[in-house]
């Protein structure tokens, strides 16, 4: 097999700091090549060098693509040669149609500069068909699910005549089923001769589809593992390469001392926000005990986030009924401040949108939820207390930053997540709800977050974890509730933990609902 791409001795530095140091990457024609590494290892920088985001001249080393040294001045130049990058944050325009999005920046023209709409729609339908998608090309992208949007991105790349497709964390926002479809598609496109580079944190996906895996750490290439050379694709080996040490156990040990019930919800029913005549959640009952980590499993859209938010000061839902008990006493939580006052915390799922004020610094973000309860007196801030608390917690949970006055937007995903965690730990909660606490962060940071969760439980907090990463949920929880289509479909004790068991509960519940 020929090499479609060779990146040789790539070095890129930012004001004297080397983000990439003599990195080599060889991608063979027609393979799926995975790029693995912790956040900040240099994967995205490398891909930005390849796609011309950092133009020729701003790095040293050679990009040899299709046998020629390329000198891309910008993304347009690299796209012309067939290198197309799909970023983690999708670049679709929500209010435009599927067809318009597919050909944006690449319009079908007639008479010079006039858009040929018939051609656009015809070609868009053609591209969609080629990836096995049967969607009306005149639908607006905003009405599609995340999985479909990701497919549209791929269609868009194919419409640009991509020869080398780069996917940055393509499945990070997708559920299992959608991820599956996407990976199948990648394999199918591979059959048709498309080469792709995939950046991913999800090692099970990588080991499933990748032909080669290059591991990067601290701006260096560590190794390239190839499937057909007899090398087994071993997740532990990848992890070892990524973090530079062997993680014998991906989930830290904990000796749970489970006490009395701290938080209990009975018959919780919530009206859908967009359609108040519908029940988004119905008759949910669950409890969490002192020192216990309770997991919530379920497919995307099962209503887990909605459940958490409806409990957390009615931040979701058009209305709700049911009862909430804390330490055996019935309580109401009319708004977020009241939740905070009653020592209930919710760490939201999307840290950049819901968790952090990105342009503010670490200490401001950490103190934000406790300004009233902890960091002020008569409305006047206690600046010293704020600094000391932020310092304290940064140390406690190991936030890596040069100063507390650093803006959180410049932190890595794992450190950002730690800041959000610290923010809610500072609010001194008895009940802590964590929604996707490790999404999009690297293995090392995940382990640290698990450790913090365990410490919280050990110190007597009641912890609820919502996660789409089934393995994580099984590794972390003492008990799991399975949520499906807005109802509790089942409950699993630690000794019954098994991924298949969870899926069986979901399937059985869906089947029951259909017959009912």
């Amino acid at each position, binding site marked *: 097999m020929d090499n479609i791409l060779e990146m040789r001795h790539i070095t890129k530095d930012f004001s004297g700091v080397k983000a990439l140091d003599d990195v080599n990457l060889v991608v063979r024609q027609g393979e799926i090549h995975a790029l693995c590494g912790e956040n900040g290892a240099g994967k995205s920088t490398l891909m930005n060098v390849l796609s011309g985001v950092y133009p020729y001249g701003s790095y040293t080393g050679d990009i040899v693509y299709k046998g020629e040294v390329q000198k891309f001045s910008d993304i347009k130049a690299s796209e012309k040669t067939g290198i197309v990058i799909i970023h983690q944050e999708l670049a679709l325009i929500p209010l435009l149609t599927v067809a318009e999005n597919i050909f944006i920046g690449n319009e079908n023209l007639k008479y010079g500069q006039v858009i040929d709409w018939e051609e656009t729609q015809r070609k868009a339908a053609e591209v969609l068909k080629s990836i096995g998608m049967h969607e009306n090309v005149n639908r607006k992208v905003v009405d599609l699910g995340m999985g479909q949007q990701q497919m549209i991105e791929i269609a868009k790349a194919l419409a640009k005549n991509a020869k080398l497709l780069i996917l940055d964390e393509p499945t990070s926002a997708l559920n299992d089923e959608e991820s599956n479809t996407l990976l199948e598609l990648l394999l199918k496109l591979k059959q048709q001769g498309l080469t792709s580079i995939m950046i991913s944190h999800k090692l099970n996906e990588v080991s499933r589809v990748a032909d080669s895996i290059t591991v990067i750490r601290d701006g260096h290439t560590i190794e390239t593992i190839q499937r057909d050379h007899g090398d087994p694709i071993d997740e532990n080996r990848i992890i070892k390469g990524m973090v530079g040490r062997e993680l014998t156990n991906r989930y830290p040990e904990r000796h749970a001392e489970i006490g009395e019930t701290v938080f209990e919800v009975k018959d919780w029913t919530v009206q859908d926000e967009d359609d108040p005549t519908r029940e988004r959640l119905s008759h949910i009952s669950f409890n969490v005990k002192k020192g216990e980590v309770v997991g919530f499993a379920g497919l995307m859209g099962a209503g887990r986030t909605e459940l958490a938010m409806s409990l957390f000061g009615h*931040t979701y839902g058009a209305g709700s009924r049911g009862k909430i008990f804390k330490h055996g006493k019935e309580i109401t939580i009319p708004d977020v401040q009241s939740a905070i006052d009653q020592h209930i915390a919710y760490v939201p799922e999307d840290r950049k949108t819901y968790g952090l004020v990105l342009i503010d610094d670490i200490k401001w973000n950490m103190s934000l939820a406790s300004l009233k309860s902890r960091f002020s007196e008569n409305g006047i*801030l206690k600046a010293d207390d704020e600094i000391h608390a932020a310092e304290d917690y940064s140390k406690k949970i190991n936030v890596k930053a040069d100063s507390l006055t650093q803006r959180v937007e410049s932190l890595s995903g794992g450190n950002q997540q730690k800041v959000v965690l610290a923010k809610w730990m500072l609010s001194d909660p008895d009940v802590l709800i964590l929604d996707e606490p490790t999404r999009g962060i690297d293995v090392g940071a995940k382990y640290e977050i698990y450790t913090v969760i365990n410490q919280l439980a050990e110190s007597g907090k009641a912890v609820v974890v919502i996660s789409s990463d089934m393995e994580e949920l099984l590794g972390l929880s003492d008990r799991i509730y399975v949520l499906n289509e807005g109802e509790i479909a089942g409950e699993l004790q630690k000794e019954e933990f098994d991924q298949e068991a969870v899926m069986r509960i979901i399937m059985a519940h869906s089947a029951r609902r259909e017959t009912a």
Partner: protein
Amino acid sequence: MMSQAATPDVHSNFKENLKGLKEYGMIIALVVIYAIFAFMSDFKNVSPMNVNNLIMQNSYVIVLALGMLLCCLTGNVDLSVGSVVAFSGAIAAIMVVDYQMAIPLAILAAIGIGLLVGVWQGFFISKLGVAPFIVTLANMLVFRGLALVVLNGQTKGPLPQEFTQIGAGYMPQFFTTIGGTKFELLALTAGLLLSALIVFMEIRSRRNKAKNGFEVPSVGASIFKVGVSVAIVNFFTVKLAMYMGLPLVLMIVAVLVAFYAFLTNRTVPGRQIYAVGGNRKAAALSGIKVNKVMFWIYVNMGILAGLAGVILTARNASATPKAGDMFEMDAIAACYIGGTAVPGGEGTVTGAVVGALIMGVLNNGMSLLGWSVDIQRVVKGLVLLAAVAIDLHFKSKKNGYLRPVIRPWDWSLAPPISRLCWLMVRQALSLRAASAGRISWKMASGLIVWRQFGRGFRLATQRWQLT
């Protein structure tokens, strides 16, 4: 591993310097603009009377800019303030002139009207969720119209002296003569007290930084900063002392500036405003009642607009339906020139005040030079555009990282300002070519300024090199 350890330092210094630089940059720009106009106007603009006028003319812009800053911090603006100034001023004037009501009552009524306008706008913004831009645009029309209606399209005046005091009066005066010049003692004392306060605050801030383990700026930088601030303060107070002492309205402005600086820096509501502007959703999930914050911001703006209406009416000794025209633009421009981020979440009271002063110095200087109002608008527009463009340019990571050490005397904003400065010096030279006796002197000083900036230019390009 070495390279990793080196990263944080460069990074934090970059951020710190940028922050410091921005505030210095604005103050330097203010001083430079003032100096340029001083050259061009034969130092008319530094005369005691003009300094006094400068303050009186700009007091209401500063008052409005303080309220506008809060709106801008949330990423919004209030377009209605000019109209509210006219309307509230009109009501006050009518109460006093037509109905002979007590003056304090009229003043309270005008401020009360501002408050009601704020409640009215806040209702649409926070309860009904109408975009502030639309709500305030609509009310800009409504209240300008109402001002015309209540005044019958005519000027209402003259107002008694007790009323005009607020806009044109002075604090108690204690004159004395030092070396043949008459000085007012209260103004001098105020200047000295304020200087002491500045020194004290800087020492306290250094001590606090050291206590909390933060990087303490070099002694030289602190002395420079304090020196410049003290010089500026005393320049104003001495000039005021040489005229009529402290204007009453300066006291009002000083109290408000202190209050809003405290509010934004040291209180929970202040912090909440920054959070709402920085990320509304995250703020809401942190227990901040976003709608409540928005409501009070617009109520606050209304109250300040009412107060500005009183001050303006008092200064003019009459109310006219056209009063306050375009004030909203001056206030918004002041905030953005002062470094407030357009999407919100970032900006300071100091910045807004300096921004307002830059606008004021420009207005005043150009008027002294006899430039027509049309040209004045062009210049003001260009200054706003340039200020925001420069600000964004240096915020953008694409334009490289700053080297660790930047001292204020590097004239860091040199490249754009120097060009402007050179143009102006040249123009001044050609304008006054007739008075040949002074050309050589002016040429010399112009060249010194130019050389300084030339040096700054080289330093700056060196330091801001793309790396």
